[in-house]
């Protein structure tokens, strides 16, 4: 049997019922005003675990978005700098295309060299580009500039030697006091021509070999250490046009080929040797012509090669490879080895993070729950260093108009620089770095798209769990209002329906 409360229940219970309804009413109006189902986790019901989880996911997505925007900015700035380096590199090459302009300006440099000096400074600026306070080409050392200043690098900083000094020292070691590139004066013993290296360690010319077209003549060597070789005519006197060819390796890995041709002309043309009356005489002439050619090469090709080697010693550095200096004290004509430079005696051109692991991993960002992108770049990476060091090498030299070998030396220099700045598939290219960091950016942007897709879904879930539909609440409120009114009216009616009112 259903108990009808009202008449029989006590006033307390009736009032409690009304209070209960009033409370539901105020809950509903709170929901309407806040738009939220509840003010605590108890009220969320069965979905509260999902709610907390989705909130966590939303918070992570927001943090990924921040990170992606940071990555975007940085990669754009890095790409701009790399583009600039590429343009500088291309412009530099164009300036060295033939016909080569060897017009010296007031300070003994060509316009191309002055351009190289400017490019060097601009390149350093590009490498010291910052996003906010973060250096973008210092690898993980994001609070340190990537490079020292152009002035320090070139001219040194206090007791620390700069690139100019390194080049000068290396040139002394490579040329030797007599500028023969650390080779002994070629000798003629009987009809045999001898050529020998001095004890020069890594410096100067290295005898790679010799050939001759003189019939019956033989070449022996190079043998021994220091290496030497001899060309024996074996009593044969050459005819016009017979050739003696000597190959010399140079410090930058290039090779100098000296070709001497037998000639009976008078005077003997350049690059030739006179055919003597006997094989012995001819041998003496070959030795003398070889000596001349070596001395010329020592003032031209060797100077350029030495500068290139010095630039490698100075610029090609990382944590395991400090700059290389010529051992000993100057003059370094008799130096036989290189030594590791210290931070106090030599300027370190690259001041960023010089670790030897993958540079991309030196700056990383998490852009999704499981995706981390690496977009770090180190200024001492091969492609960047190559540009910087060739600009510097071009800019470091100067010439004198009165120097007969100046032009040849300039040609040797520009040829090498031009080769080094050319696209070489065997070496890392600037475009490769650009592609790699752009790849990181692409991943980041793809992650951003996923976030854009996921966020509304997650927000939808949250809204479904936490929010209330104002229309629904409005209807509920109305219903509740009606219910309370009805209850109150009924209560009022019932309270009137007591026998007390009908007794007189």
């Amino acid at each position, binding site marked *: 049997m259903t108990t009808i409360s009202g008449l029989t229940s006590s006033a307390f219970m009736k009032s409690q019922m009304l209070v209960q309804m009033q409370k539901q009413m105020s809950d509903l109006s709170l929901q309407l005003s806040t738009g*939220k189902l509840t003010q605590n986790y108890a009220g969320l019901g069965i979905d509260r675990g999902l709610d907390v989880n989705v909130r966590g996911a939303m918070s992570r997505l927001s943090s990924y978005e921040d990170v992606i925007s940071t990555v975007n900015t940085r990669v754009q700035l890095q790409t701009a700098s790399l583009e600039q380096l590429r343009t500088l590199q291309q412009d530099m090459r164009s300036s060295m295309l033939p016909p080569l302009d060897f017009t010296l300006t007031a300070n003994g440099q060509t316009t191309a060299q002055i351009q190289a000096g400017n490019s060097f400074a601009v390149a350093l600026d590009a490498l010291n580009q910052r996003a906010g306070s973060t250096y973008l080409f210092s690898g993980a050392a994001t609070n340190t500039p990537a490079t020292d200043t152009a002035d320090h690098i070139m001219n040194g900083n206090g007791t620390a030697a700069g690139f100019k000094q390194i080049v000068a020292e290396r040139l002394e070691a490579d040329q030797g006091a007599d500028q023969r590139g650390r080779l002994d004066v070629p000798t003629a013993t009987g009809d045999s021509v001898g050529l020998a290296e001095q004890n020069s360690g890594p410096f100067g010319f290295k005898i790679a070999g010799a050939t001759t077209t003189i019939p019956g003549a033989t070449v022996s060597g190079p043998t021994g250490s220091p290496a030497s070789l001899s060309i024996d005519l074996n009593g044969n006197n050459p005819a016009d046009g017979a050739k003696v060819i000597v190959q010399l390796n140079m410090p930058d890995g290039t090779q100098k080929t000296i070709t001497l041709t037998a000639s009976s002309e008078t005077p003997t043309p350049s690059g030739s040797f006179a055919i003597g009356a006997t094989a012995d005489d001819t041998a003496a002439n070959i030795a003398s012509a070889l000596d001349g050619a070596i001395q010329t090469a020592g003032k031209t090709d060797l100077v350029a090669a030495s500068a290139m080697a010095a630039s490698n010693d100075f610029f090609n550095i990382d944590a395991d490879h400090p700059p290389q200096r010529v051992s000993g004290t100057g003059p370094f004509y008799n130096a036989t080895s290189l030594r590791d430079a210290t931070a106090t005696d030599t300027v370190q051109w690259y001041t960023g993070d010089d670790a030897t692991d993958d540079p991309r991993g*030196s700056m990383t960002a998490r852009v999704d729950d499981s995706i981390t992108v690496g977009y770090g770049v180190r200024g001492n990476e091969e492609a960047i260093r190559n540009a910087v060091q060739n600009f510097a090498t071009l800019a470091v030299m100067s010439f004198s108009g009165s120097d007969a070998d100046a032009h040849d030396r300039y040609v040797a220099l520009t040829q090498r620089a031009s080769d080094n700045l050319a696209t070489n598939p065997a070496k890392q290219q600037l475009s490769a770095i650009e592609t790699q960091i752009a790849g990181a950016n692409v991943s980041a942007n793809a992650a951003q798209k996923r976030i854009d897709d996921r966020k509304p879904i997650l927000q939808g879930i949250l809204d479904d769990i936490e929010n209330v539909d104002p229309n629904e609440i409005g209807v509920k409120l109305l219903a509740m209002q009606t219910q309370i009114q009805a209850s109150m009216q009924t209560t009022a009616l019932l309270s009137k329906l007591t026998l007390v009112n009908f007794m007189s």
Partner: protein
Amino acid sequence: MGLNTAISSALTGLHATQMGLSVVANNVANVNTPGYIRKSALLSNTAAGGNGVAVLGIGRELDQMVQTQLRTAVAGVNYAGSISGYYSRLVQVYGAPGGGNSLDTLFNNFTASLNTLTASPDSTAAQGDVLNQAQVLAQQLNAMSGDVQTMRSQAESGISDAVNRINQLLQDIADVSNQITASSEPDAASAAFLDRRDADIMELAGLLDIRVTSLGNNRVSIFTTSGVSLYDGQPSHLSFDAKTALNASMTYSTDPAERGVGTISLTNPNGGTIDLIANNSIRSGSLAALIEMRDVTLVKAQSQLDEIANSLALSLSNKTVPSTAVTGPDGFNIDLTGLQNGNTISLSYTSGGTPHKVTIVRVDDPSVLPLDNSQTADPGDQVIGIDFSGGMASVVSQLNTALSGDNITFSNPGGNQLQVVDDGAGNTSDINSLSASVTTTTLQSGDPTLPLFTDGRSIYSGAINAGGDQKTGFASRIAINPAVLSDPSSLVLYSSTTNIGDSTRPDFIYQQLNTASQLFDPASGIGTKQGAYSGTVADYIQQVISRQGADAQNASQLNDGQQVVLNSLQQRFNDSSGVNIDTEMSNLITLQNAYGANARVLTAIKQMYDMLLQIGN
């Protein structure tokens, strides 16, 4: 039988209706008095002379069946109401969903700031933000812990108040009972005393679950449902040694030396005492709710917070130290330098074909030994506590004793090294792995682990001391390492040569919190002893919030359900034993009529006498 008899009968009728009227008046006056039982005049036609009506006394229209049910329901509803009240406050501690102070929001903010730092490790703003967020998180844990302990203190003083009230009620019941037995007649006074005693008993039933036995002659005895006598002619006395300002390490224990909170002891009139909490004698009513809150629910809430704090601290500060293999006999060698109190060494070996998983825990005080297997959350391991205070030689001998019979041998080849090898040629045992989890204590250890969260100003390693575990109440003490605060760059620089742009450490911290899975102590109520909850710190926080929300909701629903039961019982009780104005009014009419009729009888007799007298005239 004569007219005189009729007169006296009519007079008794008038007297009875007057009495009935006074009862009606009293009933109407008490219509809303709680605990008032409807009274009725008890009439009998066997008056002294054998004629007329006699008022035997005032009866109580009591439905004892419903009253008994009501007492049980009151205990239930008070229990559920108190529990629900505490839960509704506890759930506030966890904040509003998505609110600025809710635990998950703060944790999310912390990890988001870490991710930002991973992208810009050199940014002092990002470093500062991580520290700020970590600080806010730690402070929130402190505050939540404080709230939980405040609630425990309130429960403690609630118990104290309830015990005082129980004593008052029992004394009152005793006093009133003496009055009732003194007046053996069921008169108005004794009915009022009975009402008062019932009201007292009903209030008592709300405080704790009781069983009331009627002994005849209106005497009762009161027991708890567990059978402890509260009143049996004389009241028992309850006493409660309340403690103030509870903290996490002040918990209940049956051992008085370890008990940090009060307990209720009952002294019966014979002088015997019994500890009601130790004997689990209180099972319902608001007192049971307060005890449950103080000793179970809030303790679990605290241990969940402690577990969060513990995993926050240890997952960032503990590094895994690997071992090196040794041969002939085969085994492993591990360097235990830096092993802190509470740090663990995990050893896995096979002996006699049975795989063994042993967790060796460093302690520095032999009095805490032996450790229980529940010391680690992992259900599958055997926990061996080893006292390191005696040096490596002692450690080796303790280990060899503890695992003797398994054909494995521990030794100390030098320094802090521990070597464990199998039985070689015997080939009955094999060592499978050996590693240690060591708390990093310095900022630049060369390892990405970082003691970011500390216990006040000291390193947290989950130490086990005679005074209690370091984990107990850690949530109330967790703080940011002051050394990190004074040098925020240590969030990045894990060695003296680390570059400031190196994201290794922020990345490690992020991963430890968001992707590294770990086991959580089932003592917190999440997970079971057989299957400890395994997940990330983030997962665990979600679990805690989820669980607290669900518990609060359940408590609220239970309360609503109990309320419905109570309401319907109350309704029935009111219907049967309460005052119904209509009934009283109809009684009033009846009484009025009866009075009129009796008066009419008197008038008739008077007229008859008059007639008789006129005959005489």
